[in-house]
């Protein structure tokens, strides 16, 4: 389905009561997170979930720190540039970009020492069983407490929010979604051996062929 058609459908969906309730629930979780003591930050990958979440959080706290991790060779440089531009377009003015890899071992302690106690992460229960179980158990991965404002959102809610608020969509979605489907499309690393068992390199070879032998 082309983006124009999909946008129309999602804009219609964004007028429903269900969607309004999901947004209200997300706002309540954000307010709860912000009421905690200590500094807060938003984890931003550049995908649709973190785009929607970042926009929601910035409504409450426009100067919140936005953390983005750069996956290096597994993200084409123009894609990475687009992620940063999108974050700024959404309104992030306190953006911190770190190299991926050592966050959980080293960086997180630096953040803790700096006084960060709360982070907002765009995880959704719908995405995977282990994510649902982690959210239900209220289990943060690090010493910094995680809040998941979009925990009960479906992929429809996320897209509806993105289109209803005219948020920037990463061009990788426009390449992949018409083939993979708007419900299944995800923004992650490309040509990454980690995703070989899901056949991602097969897709990347055709849809991102320019980066295959570059």
């Amino acid at each position, binding site marked *: 389905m082309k983006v124009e058609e999909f946008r129309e459908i999602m804009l219609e969906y964004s007028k429903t009561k269900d969607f309004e309730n999901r947004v209200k629930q997300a706002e309540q979780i954000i307010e709860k997170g912000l009421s905690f003591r200590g500094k807060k930050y938003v984890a931003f990958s550049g995908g649709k979930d973190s785009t929607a979440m970042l926009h929601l959080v910035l409504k409450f706290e426009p100067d919140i720190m936005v953390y983005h991790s750069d996956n290096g060779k597994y993200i084409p440089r123009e894609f990475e540039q687009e992620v940063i531009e999108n974050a700024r377009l959404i309104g992030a003015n306190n953006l911190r970009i770190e190299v991926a890899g050592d966050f959980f071992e080293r960086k997180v302690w630096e953040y803790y020492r700096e006084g960060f106690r709360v982070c907002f992460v765009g995880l959704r229960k719908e995405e995977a069983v282990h994510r649902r179980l982690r959210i239900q158990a209220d289990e943060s991965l690090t010493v910094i407490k995680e809040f998941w404002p979009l925990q009960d959102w479906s992929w429809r809610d996320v897209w509806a929010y993105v289109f209803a608020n005219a948020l920037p969509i990463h061009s990788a979605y426009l390449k992949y979604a018409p083939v993979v489907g708007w419900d299944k499309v995800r923004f992650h690393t490309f040509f990454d051996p980690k995703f070989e*068992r899901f056949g991602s390199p097969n897709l990347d070879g055709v849809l991102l062929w320019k980066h295959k*032998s570059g």
Partner: protein
Amino acid sequence: MLNYEKIDEIEYFVSKIEKNRKESYGKFEGIKITFEFSSPVCLTYPWIVFDGIIEHFLYLNSLGRDFFITDKKMNLSRYIVKNKKPYGAMYHKDVRIAVPLASAGMFDSGEYKMETIYKRFEDRFCSFRGKIRIASGMFKSYAMRHIYIPARSVTFFVYGDFEFLKDLICRNIFAIGNDVRIGYGFVKKCLVERDSLKRTVVWNGIAMRPIPVEFCEEYEQSAMMAYRSPYWAKENVRLCVVPFTRCRLKKEFKGYEG
């Protein structure tokens, strides 16, 4: 205890190739080859270039059953296409590389579709009792996504020995593309015709295959890609004109334009 004789792998394969190499070819001419499919074609790259298909069958012919034990990252191409090639090549004294006169495939559908294939744990392969990790190792479960083109036919243009290529291709080909072992890209019919037009490299101002930019005067789009087979070999990667985009060859190569 078995005594294995140590042999040099490359020497062994090269000697077989040398022994079975066809030394002389007939008249070279333009050829149009059309394959009709009975199943969709699975791809891992947007183009299939015909010299890759020819070399695959030359390997198969030269090595026989030994083809299946070659290391897949062993590039024996320079031994296979030594001297006179079964397809022509675009040469020039100033450009040290040679571009095969074989086009990329023109599918009758440009639409990409996706399918997910699941490989699941099967207990018949497991001879013991107990817990089995299915996230890794030989019992790992896969949910592999593949891209396929729902094409009914593909057309290639090549410059070479008509009789030799007709025999080589039509006798051997049963499928094209990736994952042919699970039924993708099955060839129903193979049609080989003589073609007077030069459509192998540039036709009507459109690049018909990856062409290194040093051959071109003007081009619309370029990218790093392999310009000759094997297309997986990094030593063949150059800045090339992207297939099926506009380009104009330099004056000295005008003879290759159709």
